[in-house]
Structures are given as structure tokens and as C-alpha cells.
């Protein structure tokens, strides 16, 4: 009757009028086959093969008449690829030593400031006003909100380190020279070079950020954090790596990333690969990463100005809000903190409105003093 591909669904009837196996057995068979070990290309092999393909396609396009926007793209790839190959050995050596200066740069910059700060390689510091800033690295200049500053005073600092410090209560977006866009949440520090070197793009993060990495197979993008590195080929994901959290997490929305955890360990750490729609949580104590399927919106909604909580303990919600608004939020009762909260909070609301929404939805009441909210259990008698 219908020759659509009903066949593909696990619960398909599979022509019940014929004496075929029932859908349950088919489903089981499918489950079994899917669980068979599959050979996989390593990340390096996959990149290498792709480079070969791109290289070939480029030559082919070059010799044909096809000269559209498309070819320009391949030209660029091929040019970068050539240079990358010639510095290949240097890159390997560098990779393992370059981590420390970035981490040091992040540690020098304190998030305990009242304004978002951009610290440039030539030791200029620019204060950014406003709750939400936007920084864009262009060819010669850096555009900050509506004004521009010169990118670099001394050519010697071409690959020098820059730090963007976003204190509690502020947010910022930044677009790097390669087109990668990063949303930084409150209380975060990002260290990156004025310009990426050939062959790799490397940044260091303390805090939370959402990355939309520009695709460039010749220059993998690495995000370093205190104890987990992420290798990216072009993708979108969120990382939460606050120094004061015991756990570091990465949430992947698109593409593919590779985690290198326990990087300080003698054995050189562990690698795991993530697929879209999953979240990896690295536990600093047990030194293990666990990857699970999640609803990604919940973890990345902050960048669009929402906080989505799905049965989240109140103390976690408070921790996030406290960072976002830079208010202390004190829960007098540990048990209250374990109560869960579900709902969508609009972070455009000011803190007073937000607290009213929260207390309405929970069994809490509050007092406010200065930059501090103190919560306790609702006094039922006063209702």
C-alpha cells in the first residue's frame, strides 16, 4: 500500500499481513547491530583526509572555468595549508609549552573589578562601560561597542596575549580575528592572542562562555581551561569552567569537539569525543569526564538573556543569578537549597523583579540589604 520508508521506524508494522517478524524483534536486531563496534577514523586521520580532498578539489577548480566566490574560499585554505605544513614541527613543540603563559595571564587579571576590562598585549587597558559590551577584532583596529581603538602599537606584539575580563554582573561578546564569536558570561576571563599563529588557534578560559568557532580545518581551535582542553574544528558549544566550581562542563550544540581531560596527569590525560546534544562534566576531584545527552537549551540560554532551569536545585540557580547580577544571595537553610526549581527566568529583569518572581514560585521569602539578598523559609503564619 504505502511504499514510504516506514521500514526505517523501529515500530514499523513491516507488513504484518505477511508472516514477517514482529516489530519488537526487528527493533532488537537493530539495537544489536548498532551496538557493534565500528572502526573510526582518528581525528588526525579525518583531518588529513579532508585536507587531501580539499587540496584536490582546489586544483580541479583552478583548472576549470569555475571562478566564483567558492574558489576564493579554497584559495585561502590552500594558502594557509601550505604555510601550516612548513611550520608543522615548530607547532608540535610549541603546543605543549604554550599553555602556561595564557593561564598566567588569566590569573593576573582579577574579575573583582567594577567594569569590563580589555587588557591589550602592549599593556594598554581599556575599560568598557555598560552591562553588555561587544568587542570585534578587525584587521587594523578593535571595535568596542561604537568606538574603535588601534589594534596594536608595536608590531613585536603581533601574537601577544590579550585578556578580556568580564566581572560579575556584566556580559560581553567578542569576535576574534578569525571570525570566531564568543559570548562571555559574568565573572569570566578570556585570554587570546592579538592574532592567531599559523596552524592553531588557542584561547584560555576561566568562567563560562559560548563559542561559535569559525570553520578552519587547517587551524584547529583549542580552548584551554584549568584542567580540560577542548579541540575544535568548527562548531558551537558552551563551556563552564569557573575556578570556584568543582566541576567543569562543556555542552555541544553543533559539530564535533574533543576533550582532553586530566591534562596535568603524568600519563598525558584522556581524550574523549563529543557529539551534538551532549554535555560533558569533568569532575576535578575524581578526575573523570562523563558525557550524557542533555537538552542543550538549558545550558546555553544565558547567552540570549534567559535562564532555563529544569528541576535544578535552588542553590545552583542562586549561584548563577548571583554571578549574573553581582549580588550576594544567601540561603540560610541548606535544605532549602536542595529544593528544585523549574522555569524560565528573563535575565533582562532587574534583580528586584527577579527575586520577587523566584520567591513567588518557591517557598522562600527574602530581605535585602545593600548588595545582598537573604532568603529563608516562608513564614506561613504571615500569609
Amino acid at each position: 500500500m504505502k511504499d514510504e520508508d516506514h521500514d526505517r521506524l523501529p515500530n514499523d508494522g513491516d507488513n504484518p499481513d505477511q508472516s514477517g517478524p514482529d516489530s519488537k524483534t526487528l527493533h532488537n536486531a537493530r539495537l544489536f547491530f548498532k551496538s557493534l563496534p565500528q572502526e573510526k577514523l582518528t581525528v588526525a586521520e579525518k583531518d588529513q583526509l579532508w585536507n587531501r580532498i580539499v587540496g584536490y578539489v582546489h586544483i580541479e577548480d583552478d583548472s576549470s572555468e569555475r571562478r566564483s566566490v567558492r574558489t576564493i574560499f579554497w584559495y585561502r585554505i590552500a594558502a594557509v595549508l601550505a604555510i601550516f605544513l612548513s611550520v608543522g614541527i615548530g607547532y608540535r613543540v610549541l603546543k605543549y609549552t604554550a599553555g602556561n603563559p595564557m593561564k598566567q595571564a588569566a590569573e593576573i587579571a582579577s574579575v573583582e573589578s567594577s567594569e569590563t576590562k580589555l587588557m591589550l598585549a602592549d599593556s594598554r587597558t581599556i575599560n568598557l562601560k555598560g552591562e553588555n559590551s561587544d568587542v570585534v577584532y578587525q584587521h587594523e583596529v578593535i571595535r568596542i561597542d561604537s568606538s574603535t581603538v588601534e589594534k596594536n602599537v608595536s608590531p613585536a606584539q603581533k601574537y601577544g596575549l590579550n585578556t578580556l575580563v568580564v566581572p560579575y554582573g556584566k556580559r560581553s561578546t567578542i569576535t576574534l580575528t578569525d571570525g570566531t564569536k564568543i559570548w562571555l558570561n559574568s565573572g569570566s576571563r578570556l585570554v587570546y592572542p592579538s592574532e592567531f599563529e599559523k596552524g592553531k588557534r588557542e584561547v584560555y578560559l576561566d568562567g563560562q562562555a559560548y563559542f561559535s568557532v569559525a570553520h578552519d580545518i587547517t587551524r584547529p581551535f583549542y580552548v584551554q581551561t584549568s584542567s580540560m582542553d577542548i579541540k575544535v574544528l568548527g562548531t558551537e558549544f558552551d563551556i563552564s569552567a569557573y575556578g570556584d566550581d568543582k566541576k567543569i562542563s562543556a555542552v555541544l550544540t553543533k559539530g564535533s569537539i574533543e576533550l582532553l581531560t586530566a591534562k596535568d596527569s603524568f600519563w598525558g590525560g584522556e581524550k574523549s569525543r563529543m557529539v551534538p546534544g551532549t554535555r560533558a562534566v569533568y569532575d576535578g576531584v575524581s578526575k573523570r569526564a562523563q558525557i550524557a545527552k542533555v537538552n542543550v537549551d538549558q545550558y546555553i540560554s544565558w547567552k540570549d538573556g534567559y535562564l532555563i532551569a529544569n528541576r535544578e536545585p535552588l542553590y545552583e540557580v542562586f549561584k548563577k543569578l548571583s554571578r549574573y547580577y553581582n549580588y550576594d544571595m544567601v540561603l540560610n537553610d541548606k535544605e532549602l537549597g536542595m529544593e528544585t526549581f523549574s522555569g524560565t527566568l528573563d535575565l533582562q529583569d532587574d534583580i528586584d523583579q527577579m527575586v520577587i518572581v523566584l520567591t513567588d514560585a518557591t517557598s522562600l521569602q527574602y530581605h535585602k540589604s545593600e548588595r545582598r539578598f537573604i532568603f529563608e523559609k516562608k513564614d506561613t503564619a504571615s500569609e
Partner: protein
Amino acid sequence: MVLNESDIELWELFASGSQAAFSRLYDRYADMLYAFGLRYTSDKEMVKDCIHDLFIDLHHYRDGLAREVNVRYYLLKSFKRKLHTASKKAAIFSLNEWDLDDKVVSGISFSAEQEIISDERQREMLQTLAQEINKLPERQKEILYLKFTHNLDYEEIASMMQISVPTCRTFVYRAIKELRGKLEVSAILLILWAC
């Protein structure tokens, strides 16, 4: 898999000239093709070369590609043809009789690397099932592999194997009936750790 664009959307984007889609198509299918190729031959370099050639061809002929296709099927079928040609070429040099269809889908196995299943006994049960499947004739094994690992429908499998649709269907039914009891048990185990 959780993906933002469907295969067919990606395919159409690619066919209309998007390089980004070409790259995503590669990202999405390279591993699947690699695994598929290694079911037929153990020559990893040859499989990689075939993936290379397949993507070069796709890129070259992208303007003329059919738009309404099952992408996975299309790729597998073209890829199998590439493998076939390559293995014939290889056979000339090594003076070996090496017919692709005789060496199909060997080694359906549960290896010990499958560490998710920590329980020794459970692993053994799955291994027994794998052995049962391995006892099936090569072509039947290949049909099951295409059907269950790659979700192809009977028409697609039949066309790839150059057999009739009813024959293909009968193969699957017969095989499944024989394996039924064992499948039941293993499925429970699989569900346990798939969650």
C-alpha cells in the same frame, strides 16, 4: 544522533554549491563510510583512498546530483562501487583472486574493547549472538548489516545486492526468525547500557 539539519537539507545545500555543506557532509559521513569499507576489506589505506575519490566525485558532479535521494543509501552505493573497482585494481597488482562479494562483512564481533559492558557474563551472551550471526552465509550477513546498521529499506538493499525485493525480504525474515530467542535476551542487556 541529534542534528540541526536533516541529511536531505544538507544534501540540497551541497548540491546547490555550498562549500560549508560539503565540509559538513564529510564530517557527518566520513566515519560511517570508513566503518562500512572496513567490513569489506582490512586495507585501511585503500578505504581512505576510496573515501577521497568519492568526495572528489561528489564535488565534481555536484551540479548534476539528484536532489531527492536517501543520502546514506546514495553514498553507500557509490562507495561500494568505488571499493569494488579499487579492489579489482589491487588484485591485478597482487595477482590475487580477490572478489569483493566473497569477503563481505566478515568479523561481526563483540570485542573486549566494548568496555561499557563490564559484566563478563553479559558480554559473553552478546558474543554468542555475534557468533550466531557470523555463521550466516556472507550475503545474508551483508543484508542484515545494511538493514540494521544503515537502516536501508528492502528496495535499496535489493538494488545494492542485485537481488529481487522479495528475496531480500525473505532473507531478513528467515535470519531474524532463527536469531529471535537470542535477540530477546541481548536486547535487554543492550537497553540497560544504552540508557
